[in-house]
Each structure stands twice: as C-alpha cells, then as structure tokens.
C-alpha cells in the first residue's frame, strides 16, 4: 500500500544560537581566570610538592641562569635592573606604599644561592612581609 505524504517535511535545522551563548560564557570564565605572566624569561623553576596560589598583581623579581635580574612592580612587564642596589630601591618604592604587597621570586633552579641571598637581604631591608617562590608542582608520593 502506498502512503502518500500529505505535507512536505520541514528542513532539518540544528539550533546553534544557544551554543554561542555557552561559548561566550566559557570565554568570559577563562578571561577572568587567566593570569598573564609579566615575565617571560625562559628558565627551569625548582620543583616543590607544597604549592599555593600566588596572589594576582604580585611584584616579580626574576633571576635568569646568567645572573640577569629583572623586576616588575606587578603592573607592567619585567625590566632589567642595573644592580642589586637599584633592585633594592625598586622594592622599597613598592613597600613604602604597602608593606603587605606580595612579592614573587622567580629564579632558575641552578642560580647560585649568593644571588638569592642578596635579593632576600634587599627584601628584608625593605620590610617586605609577603614573599613567595615560584615553583613547578612535583607529584606527591
């Protein structure tokens, strides 16, 4: 028996309008959570099992394997500093307005401790109270 179609079938349309809504929602989420690094010096960070989130807007002191020191107060990209005294002055400028301003030390794992010691001394003299060390997560056994 032949069945006659009385009406033509409607066109098969996939509703994609809501997909864009979801996608833009995800974009906003990633935009808000993504923190851009202010320092892009290539280096191998030390590994630590204990890790905490470093606060956003922290001042960055970067120490490359060749001993180059760069500094950023947390707003612009890091800039090289002439010497440790100049770094100390930059640190004091930050702590003068807010002694609780977070500082982050980003140093290559093979940097001699002498350089770290000099930077820590400048942070201590400037009375910086909130200091973190950038590290790569190591799996806990």
């Amino acid at each position: 028996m032949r069945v006659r179609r009385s009406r033509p079938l409607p066109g098969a349309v996939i509703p994609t309008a809501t997909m864009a809504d979801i996608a833009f929602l995800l974009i906003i989420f990633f935009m808000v959570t993504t923190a851009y690094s202010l320092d892009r010096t290539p280096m191998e960070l030390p590994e630590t099992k204990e890790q905490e989130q470093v606060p956003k807007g922290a001042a960055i002191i970067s120490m490359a394997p060749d001993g180059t020191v760069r500094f950023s107060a947390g707003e612009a990209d890091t800039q090289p500093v002439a010497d440790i005294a100049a770094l100390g002055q930059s640190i004091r400028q930050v702590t003068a307005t807010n002694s609780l301003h977070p500082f982050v030390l980003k140093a290559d794992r093979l940097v001699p401790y002498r350089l770290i010691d000099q930077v820590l001394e400048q942070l201590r003299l400037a009375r910086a109270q909130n200091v973190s060390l950038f590290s790569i997560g190591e799996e806990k056994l």
Partner: protein
Amino acid sequence: MNIARRDVPSEIPTASMADVAFLLIIFFLVASFYSVTRGIQFSLPRHDEEAFTSEPEAAVLIVISRDGALTVDGRSMPLTELIGYLHPRVSRNPEKSVIIQTSMDAPYHAMTDVFDELRQAGVGNVVIPTSAEMALYGLQEPQ
C-alpha cells in the same frame, strides 16, 4: 507597476559565531596552562633574636653545603630522612625553630628542596638568615 515581492529569510546566521567563540576558548585554555601562578609561600628572614640565641636543642640547624649535601644538627643526613627526623620534634613542639644556612655557592634548588620538606613536615617557624644577618650574629657562612 507591480513589483514582485520576494521573501527574504529573517534569520541571523549564528553558526560561525560559535566557531569564533570556540577558537577564543581554546586560546584562553592554552594561555592559562602556560602561565605559572603557583609557588611556595616563603617566610622571609626576620630579626628573631630568640631563634639565634636559643639553646642548641631548642632549634634545628640545617646546613646546606655547596654540593647540596645536608648537615642536620651536626650530623650528615640525606634529604629523604629529613621529614622523619623533624616530624617527632615538631609534633612535641610546634613552635620549634628550624634554621637553614645555605652555602653561597649552592644551587637555588638545594634550598627550595629543603624548604619544601620542612613545609611537608609541618614546620611553621623556619628561619633563613641572609649572609648579612649571619655576620650580625657571628655565625659562619657554610662552605
């Protein structure tokens, strides 16, 4: 004159919008993986005279030599045994001071490795004197 009316579909094409949006999502996803925003909270060396002048048994002294070898309270000790050594002492006295003295020629990771172990052992009172502080208190710089 009669002009024939054509039916123009009143639909906004949104398929490509989703493509653009997903492209942006992938960008932010990748960007978020490449930014290092985690680290270890560090206690700055501070002028804690009690830690320096306390009785020898009251504080644990860890000396890191230039090759990264550890000497804990005068005894040579591998890094793996550090937690086992510290844990009972910190359990008895949570305020126990641990002083880390690092050789100036040691690599940075030698200090962070020890510091990480101390954090895992639950040591809250870590003192890392700078060379200027060590000179101030008459302590010798480790070799």
